[in-house]
Every structure is written in structure tokens, then in C-alpha cells.
């Protein structure tokens, strides 16, 4: 078995040796390329690009357009192709799309559906039904601070979501503490502190480059002493492929677990514009820190957030909240029926 040191050395030498041995060949190839570049290059793009652009510009509401096309049309292969394309355009992804279509096909056959139009309510019902988690509430721990960890990749909106959550809880009459455990991104703590001042919520912060786990430990300890109800922890964004950073996050979770039962939620923030990579994010964060719920942020654009369908299908954790705007009160509970309607509408 290779040790990690072994792997590093092996990789190094390999990289290095390959480089040395291949250098003459590579240089030769580059010369070739230079000559090729001087001569005739590949043909420029044809005008297909412009047509495509037109198509796309008019595709902002794919489902609506689809239904227009379906009016007074018989259900046929084209309808199904249309449906597949539009679900894919909403980022639902191939496996989930196939699953939905198969279920829908079976049902259409069973019920003898003949008109394309009649598919719409069935599709909506199918999507709603597939979002079948019952409990989408955020959990509290009576008699002690409930710690909510916010996790996710860079730039999905964790800090903004933390502020929105703090406002929601504060408005519900609970005592809230915000914790800036993002000690990596420059000025991340300042960003949260600015929100805290706006919302009149206390913010605990560590210094840049500090250990996030120790910031969280101190925060939860002081929350206990001060009788805080909800501790919202904003962690640094990290790509799920960076093992060290994921390990750092697991450590934060373990620290919170030292306070018996305090860990109430681990919320994964997903950007609604995310494509199929969202599924990998959900998988990796779940295996590292046990995600208990998903927040679908930035659903106020034209993105449909179809990845949420795939994520719910794959994970045990439900989508709990959606972010639908920039202000602090634009965070609402996820409702499958409304989501399905919006996805199709």
C-alpha cells in the first residue's frame, strides 16, 4: 500500500521525469504547431451560432413555450422530446428527467391521455409527488442553544443566507447569535459583521487565518452562558473536492457535537444556477458533515433550480428553504407544489 508520502514522491518524480523525457518531443510539436498556426487554421464558426443564440434568447420560459406548442396537439414522440429537452434545460439532469418521463409515460398510457395539453397537470403532480419529504422545518433544541451550520462551495450565498436566517429567527422572538467562522476569505467576517449591525444581532468572529473550529467552540460556549436560542454559523466556502478543507469542516462539526445535542441543523447552501455539479456537492458535503437540509439560494433569477429535484431524489435530506431575493426577509420555506408549478410555469 502506498503511503501518502509515497504517492507524493511518485507523482513528483513521474511528473518530473515525464517532463524531462518528453521535452524534446514537446518542443518539436510546438514548432509544428507554430508552423501550423502561421499557415491555414481551422474554419471560422458558421452562422449556426447566430441562429442558436436567437433560439436561446426566446427560451427563457421553456415550459411556457412548450405548452404553447402543445395546444391542440396530439400526444406524440415530439411531445416527449420537447418535454425531455425542457426538463434538461431546467437543470433537472438526465437520470431524474428519465425517471420522471418514464413515470409520466406509464401514467399517460394508463389513463389514455391523447392530447399533449393534458400532460401539464400530470407533470406537475409527478414532480410534486417526487418531492416527498414530510418534515421541512428547521429544528430547535429546547432549553439550549440550537446550532445551525451553514456549509457549501464558494459564492453560493452562505453569508447572506446566515443573515437572512438570523433575521427570521429574531423576528420569531428568539435570541440569535451569528458566528463568522469563515476565517479564509478576505473580509468575510466584516461582511457578516455589517449584516449583524444592520439586523441588530450579535456577531462572534475569529481573526483571519484563525482556526474556525475554535471560533465556533468559543461562540457556542458563550451562547450557552448568555441564554441564546439559535447560533447561526457561517463557514468558509470550499469546493467539495478539497479534502483538507472538508476535513476542517468535519472538525467544526465535531466541536459542536461536544455540546450534547446542540447541533440542530447542517444546512447545505446550493446556488439555484448550479448544474449537475450540485448533486456531487450534496453527496460530498453529506458524507463529510451529514447535511440535514438544503437551502436553495438565488432562485429569484431565471434559473429554475431543477437540480433540487435531483438532490432530493438522491439524498435523505430535504430542501428546507429557498432564497428569492436580496433583502433579509427573502428566505421562505420550500413548498413542493409551488416549486413544481414555478418549474413548469
Amino acid at each position, binding site marked *: 500500500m502506498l*503511503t501518502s*508520502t*509515497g*504517492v*507524493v*514522491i*511518485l*507523482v*513528483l*518524480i*513521474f*511528473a*518530473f521525469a*515525464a*517532463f*524531462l*523525457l*518528453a521535452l524534446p518531443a*514537446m518542443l518539436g510539436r*510546438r514548432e509544428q*504547431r507554430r508552423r501550423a498556426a502561421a499557415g491555414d*487554421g*481551422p474554419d471560422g464558426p458558421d452562422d449556426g*451560432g447566430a441562429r*442558436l443564440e436567437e*433560439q*436561446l434568447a426566446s*427560451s427563457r420560459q421553456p415550459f411556457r413555450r412548450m405548452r404553447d406548442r402543445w395546444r391542440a396537439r396530439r400526444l406524440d414522440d415530439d411531445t416527449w422530446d420537447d418535454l425531455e*429537452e425542457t426538463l434538461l434545460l431546467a*437543470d433537472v439532469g*438526465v437520470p431524474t428527467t428519465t425517471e420522471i418521463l418514464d413515470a409520466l409515460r406509464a401514467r399517460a398510457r394508463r389513463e389514455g391521455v391523447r392530447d399533449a395539453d393534458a400532460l401539464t397537470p400530470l407533470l406537475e403532480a409527478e414532480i410534486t409527488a417526487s418531492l416527498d419529504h414530510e418534515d421541512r422545518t428547521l429544528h430547535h433544541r429546547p432549553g439550549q442553544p440550537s446550532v445551525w451550520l451553514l456549509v457549501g*462551495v*464558494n*459564492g453560493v*450565498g452562505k453569508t447572506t443566507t446566515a443573515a437572512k436566517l438570523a433575521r427570521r429567527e429574531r423576528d420569531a422572538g428568539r435570541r440569535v447569535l451569528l458566528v463568522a467562522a469563515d476565517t479564509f*476569505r*478576505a*473580509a*468575510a467576517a*466584516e*461582511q457578516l459583521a*455589517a*449584516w449583524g449591525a444592520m439586523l441588530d444581532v450579535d456577531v462572534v468572529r475569529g481573526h483571519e487565518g484563525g482556526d474556525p473550529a475554535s471560533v465556533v467552540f468559543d461562540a457556542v460556549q458563550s451562547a450557552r452562558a448568555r441564554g441564546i436560542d439559535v447560533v447561526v454559523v457561517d463557514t468558509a466556502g470550499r*469546493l467539495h*473536492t*478539497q479534502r483538507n478543507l472538508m476535513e476542517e469542516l468535519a472538525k467544526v462539526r465535531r466541536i459542536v457535537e461536544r455540546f450534547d445535542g446542540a447541533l440542530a441543523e447542517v444546512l447545505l447552501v446550493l*446556488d439555484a*444556477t*448550479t*448544474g*449537475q*455539479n*450540485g448533486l*456531487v*456537492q450534496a453527496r460530498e458535503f453529506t458524507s463529510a458533515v451529514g447535511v440535514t437540509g438544503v437551502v436553495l439560494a*438565488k432562485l429569484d*433569477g*431565471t*434559473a429554475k433550480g*431543477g437540480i433540487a429535484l435531483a438532490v432530493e431524489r438522491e439524498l435523505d435530506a430535504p430542501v428546507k428553504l429557498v432564497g428569492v431575493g436580496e433583502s433579509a426577509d427573502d428566505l421562505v420555506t420550500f413548498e413542493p407544489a409551488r416549486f413544481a408549478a414555478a418549474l413548469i410555469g
Partner: protein
Amino acid sequence: MFDTLSGRFDGIFRRLRSRGRLSETDVDEVAREIRLALLEADVNVRVVKAFVTRVKERATGAEVAQSLSPAQQVIKIVHEELTTTLGGEGGQLATPSSPPAVIVLAGLQGSGKTTVAAKLARHLDGQGRRPLLVAADLQRPAAIEQLRVLGERIGVPVSSSGTDPVEVAEAGRREAERLGRAVVIVDTAGRLQIDDELMGELARVTAAVRPDDTLLTLDAMTGQEAVAVASEFATRVPLTGVVLTKLDGDARGGAALSVKEVTGLPILFAGVGERLDAFEAFHPDRMASRILGMGDVLTLIEKAEAAFDAEQAKDAEQRLLAGRFTLEDFLEQMRQMRKMGPLQSIVGMLPGVPKELRDAEIDEGELARVEAIICSMTPAERQNPAIINGSRRHRIAAGSGTSSQAVNALLKQFKQVQQLMRTMTRGGKGRRRLPVPGA
């Protein structure tokens, strides 16, 4: 980066290679697989359609039928089409005759504009074009502070005076003229492409400072929405290119494939890591090679030319070929190699590296430990590790703050690799590809 996509293409091509002639059914099957692979990579549905149609047309045409190795020909076609889709010749930043050149960065919230501003500034600084950063994101709390901190880290001044983005941008431009900076990089607030008010504001900023380049930053993880975002921004401001961010994850980069095809905007740069130096010029043909698992030797050469001393490398090569490669050489090469950037990205650019190594998790901290161990050896030990006995091992471990086991592991691996090198180089100079260890 692009790992899943290259993984899938790898599978498709491997099956192809085992065939002789390609029947129409074979081509259909390949087309279907390519479609699936691209869709899973978040390539826009319509771009996929067009791409697959083109590949299919060419694959059933004469150029494949008459070829002796049809599979190879299909791979070539996919590579060419992929290069075209990714942006053909690629693009470059404008270089206006009278400085300062003005670059405005725009994009959705969280797409990485502020980080790109700093990375781009560092990149240009390295080319001798001294930049000025302008923090015109007055929306997000502490965004200005973030840019200030980053600016300080890379030693680039940051300007932000005024209460309105247009004012700030104009003041930034004047400041650059006053300071004689070559480039001004304006970081703007994140905005949704359908937010009319903010898009109007962005249009006023670009109207006021007349940028030579207006770049859209785009998250590599973006899904089908990417083309809508790019098209919409392009109608409101004079976009000249795209910067693709967060390409270091396992994002499949479908956005990259779609944007150029749909909007005609070239992808100019890509952000490939958290560090401020993890930023590179985007080359479509090289990226196509990388996606297809063919390595990216050109970028590697450029990085190597910047980091390595040619004379030393030649020396080392000779010792390597003669089987006289010592720990001393190893240490020297390792240090130079680290100057080329994160190891993982270097390995990703190499052709013919076995998948296990490509996927191996590389802890950069491990490198520091390896360096510490070698540094704790005497010159004699580095030349001839065989003399290292129990007590020497103990001293080395203590000196490097590691354990005897770690020292042992390093020595053992080094020995194995040395042997490997010997068998490899014995084949003579004609042999360029590396064998798979243990295969």
C-alpha cells in the same frame, strides 16, 4: 477539472478502439453516448444537439470510411469539434495605444468577480503591466474591504472614492492616469441579468469609463442558465470575453462549452484554485486536449520555462538517463516544480499519466515534510542513501520533525522510483510515454 467529462470520453473511445470498421449503428451509439456525456457536463441542451449532429455528419462521411483506423478518426473529429466549440483560436485582452487600459468585471453574485479582480491584477503585474484595482461594488457589505485586503496581499493599490459606482469607476480611471498605471481593473457588484435597475447601472459604468475589455465572470459549476446569463449581459454591456471561475473543482465545465458557441464570446482566463496565483490564460485547443485526456503539454512547457533553469534541467536529465539521479537532484527539482503552481494541476496537464496518479490526492503539506526530511540529511546521505542506518535515520527524523517510519517510507519509495527510472530509460530515447507502475 473536466474530470467527469474526460472520464466519459475515455470510456467511449476505449470501446471504439476495439472496433475495426464502424457501422452506422456504431456511430449512432457513439453519438448517443457523447450526447449523454455532454448533458451530464451541463453543456447547453441546444449546443449538445448541434455538436452531436456535426460529429455524426462527419463521422459517417468519407473521411472516416476511408480511414484505416476509423476509431482514431472519430476521436480526431471530436477533438476538432470540441476545440471549435470551446473557442477556436482563443482570445486576448485589448492593448490600447494610450494607457491606461480599462477592464470592467461583471457577473452574477458569487461568481467570483472580486477574486478574479485580484488574480487578474497579479497576472498582469507579472507581465509588467502595472495595474490599479477599483472597488466599485458598493452593494455587498465589506466587498471594498475584501478587495483592499487582496490588493495589499499582491501589492497593488486599490481605489474606491465616491458614493456611486459610476463615480467610483471614473475616479479610479483618473487615479490610474495620475499614478501612471497601465491597467485599471474595475470590480463591480454582482447582479442578476434580469435586474433592470442594476443592469442599467452597469451600462452607465461602462458608458462612463469606456472599457477596452468588459469581462463576464462565470462560475464553472453553472448549469443551463449560463448561456442565458451571458446572452443577457451581452445585450446590456459591451462584453468582450469570459473568465471562467472555480474550474479547480470537479465541475464539468459545460458552461465553457456553451458560452462561446452561443454568444461568440471567447473565454480568456480561468480561475483554477483558491490561491491568488491559481489563474491562467484559457486556450481552447489545450482545454479540448485536457478534456479528452490528452494532457496539456503546451501550458506545461510555458510554466516550466518560467520556473526551471534550463541548464540545471539538462544536467538533471542526463543524470536521470544515466541512472545517477540522487536525492539532491530530487530536492532541487521538487523546489523548482513547486514554483510551477499546485502539483495537482501540473499532473493534470501531463499526457499519459495513469489515472490513479491523476486522481491521487496530493497534500501540499506532504511536500514540505519531504523537503524537511531531505534537508535533514547530510550531503553524503543525499548522494548515497544506502549509508543511512538506524541512528542516522533517527537523527533525520528528529531533525525534520517526522518519524523514522516517514524517513523509511521516503527512502523506499525513492529506491523504487529509481529502479523504475532505470527500466524506463533503458528502452532508449525513442520511448516517450511512461509505463503504468504495477500494470
